[in-house]
């Protein structure tokens, strides 16, 4: 014959012997994550980004040879058969990659 168990009694026993879990590591982990997830204030974020952009512009201006770069831009283009062929090949490659990507995402 199947035994019946007194569920209420079983839960009462579990309740009376419930273990206590130490807070030592758990508590500090929770507080650390909360601190890490705190959003950076808007003004702080903007200031940091502006400063970074200014420093970047300064470095680029002093180190980058802008005059040489401008001088190296071609002033005239000659469109020959080989250039046309290269453009056609480039377009074909892009189309093939786009088709492959679309088919792959559908699978």
């Amino acid at each position, binding site marked *: 014959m199947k035994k*019946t168990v007194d*569920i209420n009694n*079983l839960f009462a026993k*579990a*309740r009376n012997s419930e273990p206590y*879990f130490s807070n030592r590591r*758990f*508590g500090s982990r929770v507080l650390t*994550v909360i601190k890490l997830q705190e959003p950076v204030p808007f003004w702080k974020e903007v200031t940091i980004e502006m400063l970074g952009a200014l420093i970047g512009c300064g470095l680029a201006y002093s180190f980058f040879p802008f005059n040489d770069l401008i001088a190296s831009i071609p002033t005239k283009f000659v469109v020959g058969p080989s250039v046309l062929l290269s453009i056609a090949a480039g377009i074909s490659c892009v189309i093939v990659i786009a088709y492959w990507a679309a088919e792959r995402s559908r699978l």
Partner: protein
Amino acid sequence: MLSATDQALIERVVTTDCHDSFGILVERHQSDLRYSLRQMTGWNEALADDLAQETFIQAFKSLKNYQGTAKFSSWLYRIAYNQMVSHFRLARNREVSASEEILKTHSEQLGLSTTSEIDLHRDLAYSMKALPTKQRMAVHLHLHRELTHAEITAIMGIPLGTVKTLINRGKKTLRDHLSSWNPEDVV
């Protein structure tokens, strides 16, 4: 500050963003919540602690919305319940197979292992896994945490009649699963 009430600590966190006060709230409620989540997850300690951690982080973020109409612990259980439901929804297939695996292994071991208090807690948790999430939560809150039907209704956001039905069905299923348990064996 350790003797301050939950409400006083909450006000301090909301007004001054005091992390230490929230730390005291965590210390006060973490053990109960982690135990409950172990019961909800088939004694999966890592998952239970992750859910408990997420619950406290969510609680910290939403503390401004806590109105103090219910106990802080009930409010925490509500967040934990939502966290658990969304976790199981996301990992439904994986969880189903995992719980089946646990139940299979467990039912083979049930009655054979040495009976002790920790076995009782684990066996309860394993058996609770057989219940759907809502039933599991309702049964645990009612039988273990001794909350009233009204409190469970507020935590789970479901009608009173549904809570009663969930508890009755859950108890019936648990009775079948735990038929080999003898409470007198617990040492």
